[in-house]
């Protein structure tokens, strides 16, 4: 079994665009994070750091533990072992303060079937940042759903749902954006939209973590990342190094 480890060894992120972020606190510091379900370790001793304002890539095959790790980072699941700190602080019991800075695009998207696109944005928006109706239209325009604002979500294709979920996520103005398989069910234009949204979040100073099978696509955006295999980190390094690692391991 290939057990190559590409260590970052204190190197600067691959893209110079995020160099200023290195001086700030890390957005995420994970130390020996593990998660066990029964006898199965879904994530085992994951240790990594994500610089503030950077884009971090998590790759791995199905069942590698990417989604579990993202849910732990999102504070939705508690790690069995290990600890996480966010923006320099380690919440032990009360995750509320950090949780509200996190936005997650989960594979099931979290949309209500019976609401329209505009109502979905308003509902999630009102519960967080209370966006104006102009902002709702701006966000729907951003994801190309302005013509469908009065259409119920149940009539949307999977790709349109993902676009709407991205708009809902943008309405929350998160400091830490977690995208779980953002390219799934999207056409090429939709994939480009995800890329643009990630760049937009980064311009706004947010940190983005992408878990995806689309290694090369994700690597175009990412500064660095990790590769998971059966819950263990088998490689960490710059996006280019991860791409080479994935090419050698998975093809």
């Amino acid at each position, binding site marked *: 079994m290939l057990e190559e480890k590409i260590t970052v060894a204190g190197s600067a992120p691959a893209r110079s665009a995020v160099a200023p972020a290195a001086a700030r606190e890390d957005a995420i510091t994970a130390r020996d994070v593990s998660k066990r379900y029964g006898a199965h370790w879904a994530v085992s001793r994951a240790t990594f750091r994500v610089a503030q304002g950077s884009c971090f890539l998590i790759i791995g095959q199905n069942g590698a533990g990417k989604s579990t790790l993202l849910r732990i980072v999102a504070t939705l699941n508690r790690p069995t072992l290990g600890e996480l700190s966010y923006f320099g602080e380690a919440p032990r019991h009360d995750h509320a303060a950090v949780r*509200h800075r996190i936005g*997650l695009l989960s594979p099931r998207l979290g949309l*209500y079937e019976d*609401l329209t696109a505009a109502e979905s944005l308003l509902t999630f928006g009102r519960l967080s940042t209370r966006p104006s109706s102009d902002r709702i239209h701006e966000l729907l325009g951003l994801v190309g759903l302005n013509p469908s604002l009065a259409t119920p979500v149940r009539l949307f294709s999977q790709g349109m749902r993902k676009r709407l979920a991205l708009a809902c996520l943008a309405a929350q103005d998160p400091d830490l954006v977690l995208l779980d398989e953002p390219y799934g069910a999207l056409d090429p234009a939709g994939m480009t939209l995800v890329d643009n949204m990630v760049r937009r979040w980064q311009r706004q100073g947010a940190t983005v973590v992408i878990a995806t099978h689309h290694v090369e696509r994700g690597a175009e955006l990412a500064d660095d990342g990790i590769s998971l295999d059966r819950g263990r980190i088998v490689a960490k390094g710059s996006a280019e190094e991860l791409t080479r690692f994935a090419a050698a391991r998975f093809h």
Partner: protein
Amino acid sequence: MRQVWEVLRKDLLIEWRGRSRSTGVFFFAMILLLLFSFALGPDSQVLRQHAGAYMWLSLLLSSTLALSQSFRIEVESDALTVLRLLPVSPVSLYYGKAAANTLVLLLLGVASGPIVIAVFDVTLHAPIGHLLLLLLLGCAGLAAPGTLYAGITCRAKGQEILLPVLLFPLIVPAMLASVKATTLMMNGDPMGQGRSWFILLLCFDIIYWSISGLLFAKVIEE
């Protein structure tokens, strides 16, 4: 309060949009009332005597469908995950959902009123406002622990079985008070006992709403 209102508005809007589900619950309640009346037979005196009990029994059985539905929508779409990440306190989320469930059950109770009057040959011996207030308190007594237990069971296997098994023993006092007060309103209250049952129901409502609100944060976490 703003967050409670937003959650309430969201739930009522979803309920309105998916009203075919609520219609199904309403018809279930109606069928139960008819079956109960058939079981009692044609004696109008017996029917009148037990109308209050069977009205609440049909509401109770239908409520398990409505309550579990309110959380199934959140879990099936994974919207609960999104809600947990929003700056919404679990307390606000609970009270918003419990208030929405109370209103849905109240509507169900009001809609079944004419059927109860017609089928069980009931004559009201109290102002209609009193009966509506009693319905509101009774539905609140059902919805408060019901929302909590629906939250507990929504991710469990066999939710349909678990919810009534957990809920029914807990709400016996509130159901008893609701049935007694309703029966007195429908059959007359010469000894003035209705007020005591009313107060007892109110006390249980306060207990249910306070404790359930406190416990809900633990329920929605892993």
